[in-house]
């Protein structure tokens, strides 16, 4: 049984393609480790309760709510945050379709949709609907968000 002489746990994981070694409090969620320890503030704190989805990140390519994951659980995992997306067609579609108003929910929506693109590159309407249910937009931009995501999957981003 391992024993620790400190309340901080050594941790190594990959964040946006870069290997990071830090010490974390076991009780800290990944959201706060990304934001406070690594300065990656693109993942937002919303409900902190797994309801709103604005803290969504990718864990080994799958979207997860970083407020519902302990940082220590990420040991050895590959984490992608909104800062790690480069030239994602999802980001481009959100811009093209103006799929945001205040923008607070946008990183979470984009990460979720990017995850959907990873897992189901040929997602149908029903799959898109189910996946989009994970995120909430208080500005009610759902129509534009849906159009943006549809555009990614139909390849009609600029129309």
């Amino acid at each position: 049984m391992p024993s620790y002489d400190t309340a901080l746990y050594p941790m190594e994981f990959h964040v946006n393609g870069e290997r990071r070694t830090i010490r974390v409090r076991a009780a800290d969620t990944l959201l706060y480790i990304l934001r406070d320890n690594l300065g990656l503030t693109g993942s937002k704190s919303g409900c902190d309760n797994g309801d709103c989805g604005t803290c969504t990140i990718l864990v080994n390519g799958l979207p997860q709510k970083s407020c519902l994951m302990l940082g220590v659980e990420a040991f050895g995992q590959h984490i992608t945050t909104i800062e790690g997306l480069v030239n994602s067609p999802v980001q481009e579609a959100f811009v093209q379709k103006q799929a945001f108003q205040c923008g607070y929910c946008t990183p979470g929506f984009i990460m979720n949709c990017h995850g959907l693109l990873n897992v189901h590159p040929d997602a149908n309407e029903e799959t898109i609907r189910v996946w989009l249910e994970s995120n909430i937009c208080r500005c009610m931009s759902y129509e534009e968000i849906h159009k943006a995501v549809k555009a990614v999957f139909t390849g009609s981003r600029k129309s």
Partner: protein
Amino acid sequence: MIPFDFDYYKPASVQKAVEWFQILHLQGKNPMYFSGGTEMITWARRNSIQPGAVLDLKAIPECNVMDFKKDSLVIGSCVTLSALSATNLFPLLSETAQGAADQTARNKITLGGNICGQIYYREAVLPLLLANSRMVIAGLKGMKEVSIHDVFFQQIRLEKEEFLVQIVIDRGYLSLPYVHYKKRQIGNVGYPLVTVAALKKDNQIRTAYSGVCAFPFRSFEIEQALNDPLLPLAVKIEQAIGKLPAPILTNAEGTASYREFVLKQTMAEAVNVLEGR
């Protein structure tokens, strides 16, 4: 943010998990097993629980299997609900799991966590009750396999140091005719007013419920009423309602009287569909 500290351990074997739990318990650490952890993180953030140590079960190989062994499907307790739905080996379980929380949360919530949780609904247990599943449980005396009906009565009943390792389902149940209804007050995500899972075996309809009372349940008395060939449907349902194991729930999702109305409609839908199959 979780307002207190705890120690974190990730045992790589069933035996180590139980041993470490026992040591931590003797040290007065109030240890908790941890699988997906979504519920534990939520309660801890609200300071409703204060474990001094958590034992993450996700590195234990037996807790991550999802495969056939002879004539049974074996599912590890750390398999996520989204993985269950994606593989679709037991369609009723897949559909029921798909109704819990939302897609992103289901990437984290595990079957074992859902069954062993404290929240009323624990819907993933419904198909397992209907299929007379067996639970593989680890404890101080090693592993044991027991009927779900011996350890799940309103909630999972384990000794403090025990944890759920696997669920075993006979292959014969996987392809039986079934229905699953989750009725919410509004929308497609959220807790149910009523969830009904039902399957038909040997010409008998089996039903299990979540959202109706303050715990999920399967009732053999209700099944007896619903399968009585001499009664018209409306009478069957009235009799079934009279055999509920506890008062109908009233909470933010709906009042007891509204739930009862929805339950009656849903029971009728289930019986109508399955009687024709």
